[in-house]
């Protein structure tokens, strides 16, 4: 067991603040690596120590491995926490940490690479008996191959980049005519974003819910499931609202999905926090989509649903400690999260950087706001447009929805457009209230939703 005393946090914004909190509670010194654009942000004030590692551009700061490692070694960190995004799922980075004597707070580089190759991960799942979305067994290498595969599985299909993630490198094709363009665009996007343009093809699942299982594993290979999160309320693969439990969950389904998720984690030799994403159809059948080898944005949903601190547990498992549970955890009550982004729903969700002239988050019982913002904070154009995450936890779904609506109503933000009006609109939809919002719903009904939003209907 290795005692961690100093953690270099290679991230920014709300997740950096989150990790700093966890460090404080663990009695660990937090060292924040920040870019010059983030000099005056809250996490820099919060951290015990901080170090400027580069200019605003992420590829020369947060993503520039020599600078992150240089900072970690220069400040004598024992460990590095990558947060989410940036270098969190970069196998090379995890490997360099390992070799440089820095504990990478996350799974091994091997696990990251295995699950990071989406095509290889699917193949592994098939091998161990976890159901996968129908699709090509590996990458497609020619136009003929993709046409044949798509023809076999039936349209519409989803072209996905093997190196992709976070919704990038994906394109749908409804007809054979659209396929070539879909393959080309997905491949290009992936090559630019991830350096590799290999794609595979999956059947585009209609009328499915996106249900993911949070797992936690320790160095001894024990894996625990902490229940599911339903993230079906999404637009262009960007999640807007998440909840736990899932409206279509049953005890049996949860057990089976939990088993499958744990199998996946074990097959990947996993250690730490991870999320296995599935789609669940109307018949209650679930299919593996991909595994995310990092702490996720929506982790607070699980934390409030089962009553735990995932970030602290991540740190402890990284030190070699065993998991504090011996049974799977089950969500209690109902937890909902809204991701508040500085985006204008009325203008194609264009990211809208600016200054938060007014920032007054809601307060209340069983309400949590994860944010690194305060009045005067800047949403900079260099990074994502996340303002805050609002999470409510109540006894029932209806109470949770009402509580969230209230919270959003009390969240006073001025200076940038936000997704709050949209989220309020979604919460009021009968489809949402009845738990019928599947992954295609928002996109399909977006025009109407935006129209109602503009007219101030609720």
């Amino acid at each position, binding site marked *: 067991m290795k005692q961690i005393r100093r953690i270099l946090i290679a991230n920014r914004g709300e997740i950096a603040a989150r990790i700093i909190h966890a460090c404080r509670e663990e009695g660990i010194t937090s060292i924040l690596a920040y870019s010059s654009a983030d000099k005056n942000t809250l996490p820099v004030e919060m951290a015990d120590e901080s170090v400027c590692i580069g200019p605003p551009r992420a590829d020369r700061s947060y993503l520039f491995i020599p*600078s992150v490692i240089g900072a970690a070694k220069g400040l004598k960190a024992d460990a590095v926490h990558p947060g989410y995004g940036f270098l969190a799922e970069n196998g090379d980075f995890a490997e360099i940490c390992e070799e440089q004597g820095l504990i990478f707070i996350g799974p091994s580089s091997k696990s990251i690479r295995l699950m990071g190759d989406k095509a290889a991960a699917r193949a592994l799942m098939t091998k161990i008996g976890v159901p996968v979305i129908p699709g090509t067994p590996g990458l497609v290498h020619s136009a003929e191959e993709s046409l044949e595969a798509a023809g076999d599985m039936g349209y519409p299909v989803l072209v996905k980049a093997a190196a992709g993630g976070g919704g990038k490198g994906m394109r749908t094709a409804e007809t054979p005519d659209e396929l070539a363009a879909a393959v080309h665009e997905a491949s290009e996007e992936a090559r630019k974003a991830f350096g590799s343009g290999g794609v595979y093809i999956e059947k585009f699942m209609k009328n499915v819910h996106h249900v993911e299982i949070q797992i936690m594993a320790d160095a001894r290979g024990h894996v625990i499931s902490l229940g599911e999160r339903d993230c079906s309320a999404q637009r262009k693969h960007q999640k807007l609202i998440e909840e736990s439990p899932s409206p279509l969950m049953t005890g049996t389904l949860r057990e089976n999905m939990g088993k499958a998720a744990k199998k996946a984690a074990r097959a990947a030799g996993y250690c730490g926090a991870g999320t296995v994403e599935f789609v669940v159809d109307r018949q209650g059948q679930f299919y593996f989509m991909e595994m995310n080898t990092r702490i996720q944005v929506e982790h607070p949903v699980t934390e409030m649903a089962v009553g735990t601190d995932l970030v602290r547990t991540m740190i402890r498992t990284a030190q070699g400690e065993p998991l504090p549970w011996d049974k799977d955890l089950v969500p209690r009550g109902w937890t909902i999260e809204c991701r508040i982004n500085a985006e204008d729903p009325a203008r194609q969700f264009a990211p809208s950087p600016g200054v938060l002239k007014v920032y007054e988050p809601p307060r209340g019982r069983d309400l949590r706001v994860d944010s690194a913002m305060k009045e005067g904070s800047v949403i900079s154009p260099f990074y994502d447009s996340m303002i805050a995450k609002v999470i409510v936890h109540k006894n029932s779904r209806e109470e949770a929805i009402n509580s969230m609506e209230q919270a959003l109503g009390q969240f006073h933000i001025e200076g940038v457009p936000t997704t709050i009006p949209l989220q309020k609109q979604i919460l009021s939809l009968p489809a949402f209230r009845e738990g019928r919002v599947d992954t295609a719903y928002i996109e399909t009904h977006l025009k109407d939703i935006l129209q109602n939003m503009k007219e101030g209907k609720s």
Partner: protein
Amino acid sequence: MDKTDKEWIQELMNKFQQSEITKIKIRCGEIELEMEKEASRGKKSSGIISETDTDGQEGSQNPAEEEILSPLVGTFYAAPSPDEEPFVKEGAEITADTVVGMVESMKVFTEIPAGVQGSVQKILVHDGDFVEYDQPLFTVRTEQP
């Protein structure tokens, strides 16, 4: 010199644009002007033009002193190798292209170009020190315009 405020401000903005100063704050009578350029790498000016009387004349300029900032985070090296002389010593005359040091991280050594012309006034760090991005490494007495 008898100019309207507007013309004076315009001229000042032009001069600022052409100069190597990156940030400037001027008070002149009732007029207060603050201008900042998009961060130009490696330089920071502490030159402040001080205000004077109300008819718009520029004040006298303090001898300008500029700082050379670290372009990377890592370990600072003052010399090309342990056996050689440092790149520059105090008093050395330098131009924008003069290499004044190196910053190393993961065994890659990046040269630090001076970025300013003048003479090295003070060396603020030691060989082997850990430095962060934008950390002042040298002060340089720049030539008067």
